[in-house]
C-alpha cells in the first residue's frame, strides 16, 4: 500500500509535468511548414561542436522535409553530419555539441499543433515529453547503447513508466508483447536477460522494441544495421519495414550503405561535410543523380549483375517471399579445382578453444568451442582467396592460424614458395621466425593497430629492425620508398599516426605488412572500417601491389561486394565449417550451398527498382550435425 504510493509519487516526479506549458510556448502556425503533408520540417539547422580548436559546424545550415508515412534515408560518409542532424531533432547531440540555430518543426498528429522543437530547452519537460513517446530513436551499436547492468525488460519498461499511466503488471505484459512483436523468441524469459546474454540481432530487436513501445509517430534509426551481419541486417530491415507499415509510422533512416538505401528508402537526402548536397525520391537519386558527389558515391558501388534481370523489373512484392533452404554444413561444396601451384595448402585444419561457460558460481562446466572445423583450402601463388562468412564463423581464427598467432589443434598448413616448403602448423616459435616476414598481416582497425607513440618510420621499419634485415640509413630508405609505393609521401615518415586519416593509416598498415617483401598477406577485414570512397582507393592499391610484387592474398571479409570485386576465388564459412569454395564468378552467380544462397540473397542490391523482387532465402542447417 505505502509502497505503491511511493511509486506513484516517483512516477509523477519523473513525468514531464511542465510539458504542456513549454510546448505551448514553441507552437507555431501550421502554415509555416514548407509542406502541408510533412511530419518534420528542418529549416536552416545549425549544430556546432565547440572544441579546443574552435567551433566545428557538424550540421551547417541544412533544410529538409520529412513527409508523413514515408521512409527518408539520410546517406553520407563518416563526418557528413547525418548523425548529428538526427540527434539534433530530439536534442540529444553528444557533448560538446549544441543546436545553434534554425527551426525544427514537428507535427506528431496530422491535424495537431506544430511545435518548434529546436526552441525547447534540452533538459526541459517539453522536449522530454516528445522523446520516447512521439519520436523514437534506435542507435547503431545495440551493445553499447543499452546498459550492461540492467535487464532489457527494465530498460524497455522505463519508457512506459515515463509516458503512460499503466501499472507495473500491465507494463510487464506490454513489454513481453512488444518483445514478441519484434521477433524475440520466448519473450517472457528474455525480458529478464541482460544485453550480453543476447546475440547482436536480438539486442537490436530489443532496442527497436524500446523505441517503438510508446508508439511514436516518428522513428529515427541511426545506422541500426551497421554493426550487424548481413543476414541479420536483412531480418532487421524486414522487421522495420513491417512495423512501420503496421504502426503507420514515419521513419528517418540514417546509413552510409547505399544498398540499404535502395532497399528501404522512399526519399533520400545525401549529406556531405554538414551540408545537404541532394534530396529527392529514391528512384531519381539512383537513376538520375544530379550532384557530382551523389554520382561519385554511386560510382563507387560494385556493379552487381543480378540474374533476375535489369530489362523489365518484375512486379515488386510488398513483402519479399521467404524461401527456406537447408543443407548439411559438414560437407563443403567444391567448384572446379584451383589452377596453378598452391602457395598455401591448408589440410584438415581444426582449432578449438576452451570456454568457461555458465555463471561464475558454477564454473566447472568447461566447453570446447570448435572455431575452425576440419577446413581444407588452397591458395594459388599470386592469386587472391576471399574468405567470407558472418561474425563467429571462424574466418578470423583461420587467418590467425595461418599467421600462427594461434597453434592449431590439428591439421596442416603447407607453405611452399619454391625456396621454402614447410608445414607452418607444427613449427616452434623459433623455427617460425624466418616465416614471420614471408607471411604478413593487415589489420581491420586502422586506429587501434598503430602504436600512437611511434612515428610512421618506426612503425613501418620495426619488422625490418626486428628481423635484423636492415638498419640505419638503409632502413630509412626502404621505409620511405615503401611509403611512396603505398601512395604516401616520403616526408610523412616522421609524423605520428594521429596526423593521418583512416585511409592513410590503412596505407601505413599495408606498408608495414609489405616492408619485409612477404609472399603471403592475410588481410583481415582490411577495408571494413573505411568509407566507401576510401575503400575503393585501398582496394585499388591492394590489387596494384599484387601485380607489382606478385603477392598472394588471403582476404578475410564479411562484405561480399568487396570480396567479389577483388578475389579470384571465394571460400564461404559457416560456424567453423567450410561450406562452399570455388572461383568468385561461379560462387556468386551460381551458389550451390544453401547457406551461400541465403547469404547472397541478404545482400542489399543498390537499385531501388529491384526492391522486393528477390525471394529472401533463409538457411537452416540440417539437424544431423
Amino acid at each position, binding site marked *: 500500500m505505502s509502497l505503491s504510493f511511493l511509486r506513484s509519487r516517483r512516477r509523477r516526479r519523473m513525468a514531464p509535468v511542465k510539458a504542456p506549458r513549454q510546448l505551448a510556448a514553441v507552437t507555431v502556425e501550421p502554415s509555416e511548414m514548407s509542406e502541408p503533408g510533412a511530419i518534420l520540417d528542418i529549416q536552416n539547422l545549425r549544430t556546432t561542436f565547440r572544441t579546443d580548436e574552435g567551433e566545428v559546424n557538424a550540421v551547417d545550415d541544412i533544410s529538409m522535409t520529412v513527409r508523413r508515412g514515408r521512409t527518408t534515408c539520410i546517406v553520407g560518409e563518416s563526418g557528413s553530419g547525418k548523425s548529428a542532424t538526427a*540527434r539534433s531533432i530530439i536534442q540529444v547531440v553528444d557533448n560538446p555539441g549544441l543546436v545553434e540555430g534554425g527551426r525544427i518543426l514537428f507535427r506528431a498528429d496530422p491535424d495537431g499543433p506544430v511545435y518548434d522543437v529546436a526552441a525547447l530547452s534540452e533538459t526541459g519537460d517539453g522536449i522530454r515529453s516528445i522523446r520516447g513517446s512521439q519520436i523514437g530513436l534506435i542507435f547503431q551499436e545495440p551493445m553499447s547503447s543499452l546498459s550492461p547492468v*540492467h535487464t532489457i525488460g527494465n530498460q524497455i519498461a522505463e519508457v512506459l513508466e515515463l509516458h503512460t499511466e499503466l501499472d507495473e503488471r500491465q507494463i510487464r505484459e506490454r513489454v513481453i508483447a512488444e518483445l514478441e512483436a519484434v521477433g524475440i523468441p520466448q519473450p517472457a524469459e528474455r525480458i529478464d536477460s541482460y544485453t550480453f546474454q543476447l546475440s547482436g540481432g536480438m539486442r537490436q530487436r530489443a532496442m527497436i522494441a524500446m523505441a517503438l513501445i510508446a508508439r511514436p509517430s516518428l522513428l529515427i534509426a541511426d545506422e541500426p544495421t551497421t554493426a550487424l551481419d548481413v543476414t541479420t541486417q536483412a531480418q532487421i530491415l524486414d522487421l522495420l519495414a513491417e512495423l512501420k507499415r503496421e504502426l503507420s509510422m514515419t521513419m528517418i533512416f540514417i546509413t552510409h550503405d547505399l544498398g540499404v538505401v535502395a532497399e528501404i528508402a522512399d526519399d533520400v537526402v545525401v549529406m556531405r561535410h554538414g551540408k545537404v548536397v541532394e534530396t529527392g525520391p529514391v528512384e531519381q537519386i539512383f537513376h538520375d543523380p544530379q550532384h557530382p558527389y551523389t554520382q561519385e558515391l554511386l560510382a563507387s558501388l560494385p556493379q552487381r549483375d543480378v540474374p533476375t534481370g535489369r530489362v523489365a523489373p518484375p512486379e515488386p512484392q510488398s513483402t519479399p517471399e521467404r524461401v527456406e533452404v537447408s543443407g548439411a554444413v559438414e560437407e563443403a561444396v567444391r567448384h572446379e579445382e584451383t589452377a596453378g601451384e598452391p602457395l598455401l595448402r591448408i589440410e584438415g585444419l581444426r582449432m578449438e578453444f576452451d570456454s568457461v561457460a555458465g555463471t561464475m558460481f558454477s564454473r566447472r562446466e568447461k566447453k570446447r568451442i570448435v572455431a575452425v572445423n576440419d577446413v581444407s583450402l588452397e591458395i594459388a601463388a599470386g592469386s587472391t582467396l576471399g574468405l567470407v562468412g558472418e561474425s563467429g564463423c571462424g574466418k578470423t581464427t583461420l587467418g590467425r592460424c595461418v599467421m600462427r598467432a594461434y597453434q592449431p589443434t590439428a591439421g596442416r598448413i603447407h607453405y611452399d614458395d619454391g625456396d621454402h616448403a614447410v608445414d607452418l602448423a607444427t613449427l616452434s616459435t623459433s623455427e617460425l621466425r624466418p616465416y614471420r616476414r614471408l607471411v604478413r598481416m593487415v589489420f581491420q582497425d586502422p586506429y587501434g593497430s598503430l602504436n600512437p607513440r611511434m612515428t610512421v618510420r618506426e612503425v613501418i621499419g620495426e619488422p625490418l629492425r626486428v628481423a635484423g634485415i636492415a638498419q640505419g640509413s638503409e632502413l630509412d630508405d626502404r621505409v620511405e620508398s615503401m611509403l611512396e609505393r603505398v601512395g604516401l609521401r616520403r616526408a610523412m615518415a616522421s609524423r605520428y599516426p594521429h596526423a593521418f586519416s583512416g585511409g592513410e593509416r590503412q596505407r601505413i598498415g599495408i606498408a608495414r605488412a609489405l616492408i619485409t617483401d612477404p609472399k603471403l598477406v592475410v588481410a583481415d577485414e582490411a577495408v571494413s572500417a573505411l568509407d566507401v570512397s576510401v575503400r575503393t582507393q585501398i582496394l585499388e592499391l591492394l590489387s596494384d601491389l599484387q601485380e607489382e610484387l606478385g603477392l598472394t592474398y588471403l582476404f578475410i571479409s564479411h562484405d561480399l561486394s568487396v570480396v567479389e570485386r577483388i578475389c579470384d576465388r571465394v571460400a564461404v564459412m559457416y560456424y567453423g565449417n567450410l561450406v562452399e569454395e570455388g572461383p568468385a564468378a561461379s560462387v556468386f552467380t551460381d551458389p550451390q550451398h544453401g547457406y551461400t544462397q541465403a547469404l547472397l540473397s541478404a545482400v542489399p542490391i543498390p537499385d531501388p527498382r529491384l526492391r522486393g523482387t528477390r525471394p529472401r532465402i533463409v538457411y537452416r542447417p540440417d539437424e544431423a550435425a
Partner: protein
Amino acid sequence: MLRFTVHRVLHVIPTLIIISIISFFIIQLPPGDFLTTQVAALEAQGESLDPAQLEALRIRYGIGEPFWVQYWKWITNIVLHGDFGLSFQYQRPVSDLISERLGLTVLLGLTTLLLTWAIALPAGVISAIKQHSPADYAISILGFVALAVPNFLAALALAYIGFRFFGQSVGGLFSAEYVNAPWSLARVLDLFGHLWIPVVVIALAGTAGIIRTTRANMLDELHKPYVTTARAKGLPEGRIIRKYPLRIALNPFVSTAGWNIPQIFDGEVIVATVLALGTTGPLLLGSLRSQDMYLAGGIILIIAVLTVVGTFISDLLLAAVDPRVRFGKA
C-alpha cells in the same frame, strides 16, 4: 552462489595460515626481544635485574625456543582458546587490551568512512557532470589541499582551534572528568564533542582520492551511448545519471568496500597517536616500539584477517551488484 562461496572460503584458509606465519615472522624480525628492551629501559633508569629472574622470565615466555615452537604455541592458543597471549608491557591479556578499545575504534572508523563517502561521492559526481566549471575546479582544489596537508598537522591545527575557541581539552576522546566515568548522556555528548576533530581530519584526507576516481569513472560513463539512449527515452537528467552512469561508476567502490574493514579496525595510527585517542592505533604503535610481540602480533593478525575477509565480502558484493561479473562476462 553457495558453491562460489565455499570455493572462496577454501582459498581463504591457506591465505590466512600464510599470513599468520608472516606476521609472526615479522614481529620477530627486529634484533633482540622484549626482555632485552625491558632490561635496557630499566638500566637507563639506573636499575638492574637479577640474571636469575631474567632467565625465569625467558623460559616462561618461551623466548629461547625455536621459531616454529613459539609460533605453534601462539597460533593454537588464538584459534582454540581465543587467547592472544599476554602483553609484556601491560602485563594483561592482549584480548582484553584490544576489546576495551574496540568500541571507540569502530565508532571512529565508521563515522570517518561514512563522512568520507558522504562528501566524496556527491562531490565527484558533481565535478564530472560540471566538468571544467568553477564548481569542478573548486572541488578538485579542496580535495588536493586536504590530501596534501599531513594528517597530523591538520589534527594539531583543529585541536588548537577546539582548545582555543571551544575550550576543549587537547587530545583524547573524553574530557578529563569523563575519562573514567560510567556511560551517561553527558559522557556521550562529550565524546562527540571530541570525536569531530579526528573524523574531519581523516575523512577529508580520504576524500581526494575518491573524488578523483568517481570523477574519472563518471566522465568515462557519461559519454557512453547508453546514456544518450536513456536521454532519448525522455528520462529526467537527474534520474539518468543516478540510474545509469553512476551505477556503473560505483563498481570500483563496491569492489574495494571490503578493504575498509581493516582500516576501521586499525584506528588511524598517526592521527590517533597525535590526538592521544584511546583506539587500537596508538596501542599498535606502542607495542611495536617496545617489541611487545604478542600484542603487536595479535593486532597485525587481526588486521590481516580482516583484510582477507573484507576482500572476500567485496567479491561477493561485486557479483551481487554487477550481472557481468555474476555471469562471468567481465
